[in-house]
């Protein structure tokens, strides 16, 4: 049915698969989208790029009917349409692959794909038809999946395929993908792009939302740039450069590469030997991990999230007790029999910038000045030890906000009211103030905009050059490669290998992230 639809629309020769005119959307006082104009040519891959909070996801949710625009017009294949909910969007041939998959983990692939278009009030009628359709789509686009497999048994790449199949099965000829590569390994990303190219060749229009410049350059035909809720530019990809796109995104010149000198290393400050940990459900989540970090160097830890990075960080910062192995850190030992509390570690000079600042980094309802001394509140920063010295705390916070360019510079504002980048700057300002000798950093720039990323990277490099041993865990491969002197790759709780950052590439790291040993890769 969708094919006939496509032929008719082809006969009408609608040049634009999708067109938006003057779309605006506010949430309370926040104007997420302001007067957006957008034209997507049929049969192309069109990128939408912008920083976090630029309004990309809101715009996509409007296109897919999850949100309703306050004003503006929308056209699909040249005809004005009114998309009030997802059902309307699907009826107009729009499908969406969400950043967080809309799949029921306990359902089979078949059940997930059927959901919403079951083909009758009894499931029996639609099942055979859906299996046949899945096979047909799988053969056409090279996406074969077992319809009876449970979603919870599939890896992330396969789950994404199910999402794509679900959209295509619904008859989608316009496919929106929201940050599709965030959870994929480089190889899986390459496979996804291959699928997208096949889809384009088949006449499907693809809308790719991302904040990664490299992906825009690699796969899109055209790109639109968003900043602070507005469309700030449209370019043909072939006629633009990453530098220009970055400037449009941020609104000023930015340094894309991390600028750093060769490391000047000294003593080993962190020595991890045979470290292991079990989950509360009895699974081994950290398995015989060993490495050393010297003062003055940055060890990056790469890997798809959930492969042991979190328990490792938790052990190094005293939040989890290992069951095997030991850690020598600044002359102290952490092991199963000699656990250390986060406070003890902080006192000997271990700083911690947590992976999830909302959970472990900040108390969101506290003021910025209170967050600025959190964890150090027993010391001189908060006063004489009996009463809190509010004036002193505020003065300290003001100084730190100035130094780390936290905006707005309001020590009384609750942490929740700062943007992601500024929240992260508060955490970084706090942890760096005490001049840590070892710093454990998780996802330093998650949810942080490009301008702030540059600033945070500079701070980390400066601390390294001052002789601190830094461990950086990040799922952003570019970030790990840019920041680190050496890179350890983790898979399934194990250390797959440690490589020098200047002697590796994304391909090699990607294979290691999939669990293939370093020797086999090289």
């Amino acid at each position, binding site marked *: 049915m969708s094919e006939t639809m496509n032929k008719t629309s082809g006969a009408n020769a609608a040049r634009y698969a999708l067109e938006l005119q003057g779309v605006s959307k506010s949430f309370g006082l926040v104007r997420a989208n302001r007067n957006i104009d957008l034209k997507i040519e049929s049969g192309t891959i069109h990128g939408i790029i912008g920083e976090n909070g630029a309004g990309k996801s809101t715009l996509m949710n409007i296109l897919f009917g999850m949100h309703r625009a306050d004003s503006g017009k929308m056209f699909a294949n040249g005809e004005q349409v009114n998309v009030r909910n*997802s059902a309307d969007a699907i009826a107009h041939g729009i499908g969406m692959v*969400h950043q967080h998959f*809309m799949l029921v*983990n306990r359902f089979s692939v078949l059940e997930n794909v059927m959901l*919403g278009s079951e083909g009758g009030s009894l499931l029996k009628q639609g099942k055979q038809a859906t299996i046949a359709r899945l096979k047909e789509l799988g053969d056409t686009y090279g996406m074969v999946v077992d319809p009876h497999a449970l979603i919870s048994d599939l890896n992330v790449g396969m789950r994404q395929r199910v999402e794509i199949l679900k959209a295509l099965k619904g008859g989608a000829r316009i496919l929106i993908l929201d940050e599709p590569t965030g959870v994929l390994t480089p190889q899986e990303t390459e496979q996804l792009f291959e699928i997208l190219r096949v889809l384009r060749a088949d006449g499907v229009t693809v809308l790719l939302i991302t904040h990664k410049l490299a992906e825009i350059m690699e796969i899109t035909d055209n790109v639109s740039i968003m900043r602070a809720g507005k469309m700030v530019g449209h370019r043909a990809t072939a006629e633009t450069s990453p530098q220009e796109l970055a400037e449009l995104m941020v609104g000023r010149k930015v340094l894309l590469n991390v600028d750093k000198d060769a490391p000047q290393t000294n003593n080993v400050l962190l020595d991890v030997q045979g470290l292991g940990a079990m989950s509360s459900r009895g699974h081994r989540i950290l398995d015989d991990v060993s490495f050393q970090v010297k003062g003055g160097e940055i060890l990056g830890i790469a890997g798809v999230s959930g492969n042991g990075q979190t328990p490792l960080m938790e052990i190094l910062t005293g939040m989890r007790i290992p069951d095997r192995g030991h850690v020598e850190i600044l002359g102290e030992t952490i092991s199963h029999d000699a656990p250390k509390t986060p406070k003890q570690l902080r006192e000997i000079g271990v700083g911690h910038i947590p992976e999830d600042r909302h959970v472990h980094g900040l108390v969101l309802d506290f003021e910025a000045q209170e967050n600025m001394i959190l964890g150090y509140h027993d010391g001189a920063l908060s006063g004489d030890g009996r009463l809190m010295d509010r004036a002193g705390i505020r003065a300290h916070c003001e100084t730190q906000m100035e130094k780390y360019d936290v905006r707005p510079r309001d020590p009384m504002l609750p942490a929740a009211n700062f943007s992601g980048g500024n929240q992260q700057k508060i955490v970084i300002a706090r942890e760096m103030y005490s001049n840590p000798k070892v710093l454990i950093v998780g996802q330093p720039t998650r949810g942080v905009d490009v301008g702030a990323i540059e600033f945070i990277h500079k701070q980390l490099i400066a601390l390294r050059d001052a002789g601190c041993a830094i461990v950086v865990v990040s799922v952003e491969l570019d970030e790990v490669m840019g920041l680190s002197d050496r890179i350890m790759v983790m898979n399934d709780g194990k250390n797959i290998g440690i490589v020098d950052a200047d002697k590796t590439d994304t391909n090699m790291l990607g294979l290691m992230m999939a669990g293939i040993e370093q020797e086999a890769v090289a």
Partner: protein
Amino acid sequence: MADFMLQLLLTFDATLRLATPLILCAMAGIFSERSGIVDISLEGKLLSGAFVAAAVTALTGSPWIGLMAAICASVFMSLIHGFACITHRGDQVVSGLAINILASGLTIIIGIALFKKGGQTPALSSDERFRGIEWFGVNLMDNIPIIGTIYRQLISGHSLLVYMALLAVPLCAFILYRTRYGLRLRAVGEKPESVDSAGVSVAWLRYRALIIGGIFCGIAGAYLSISHGANFVREMSAGKGYIALAAVIFGNWRPIKAFYACLLFGFLDAATSRLQGVDIPLIGEIPIQLMLAIPYIVTVLLLAGFIGRPTPPAAIGVPYEK
């Protein structure tokens, strides 16, 4: 030996009768909880159903009108729950508790106002109740040993509402696993976003689940007061709604398994009352205190791990917000 056989049969017979309200409430709980709404208000719906059934039957003389009124009252309670938890995204446990307290108070106040009998309703005559139905050929089958007795005692002779409860189980399983509505219902309790992004209304799905639950609870309530009993007594639900909820959890939110759990609870209840003062071969007379404690001991043992780790619907208790 024949006497023991008969005793056992009578116990099974009582099991069915005592398990009926549990089964109906458990099916109600499965619909509600599978849709993602915690339903501790089963108790309140059961109680209001029981009261309205008895009161309306006493006033009109027709158990059928009583049953319909009980269903309406229970569905109304469900809609209050839905309005608070679905439309206004309130806390589901708090809303459920409020409904239970509301039902407990309202049934007594209205009962006193209408009948002036201290919260009870007048006793109903036997043709104002759903009485046991004698099945075809019971007397003929009596000539066949054992099977005849089983037929007479266990299979035949229950009220229509007991048979409805027994039919409700396969019906629920069919709806849940074989129909479009069931697929969407299971999905909305696991991941409401998946349903929303497929273009299906989350709120309407959940309201429908609560309404179906209300219908089952209404039948269960009517069974208590105009079939099993002959009038409404204060607090006559006596925690059966909570036990049904426990059965839903023991049954891992599956109709057939929850049905077995209900039978187990019903059996324990029946055995307790039947075995009081009875001399059991080889064991002797069991102290009544132990007998009364057995259902609770079994509950603790079951909860302690004999049933394996329950896997509740993933999105249960979480109000859906876009």
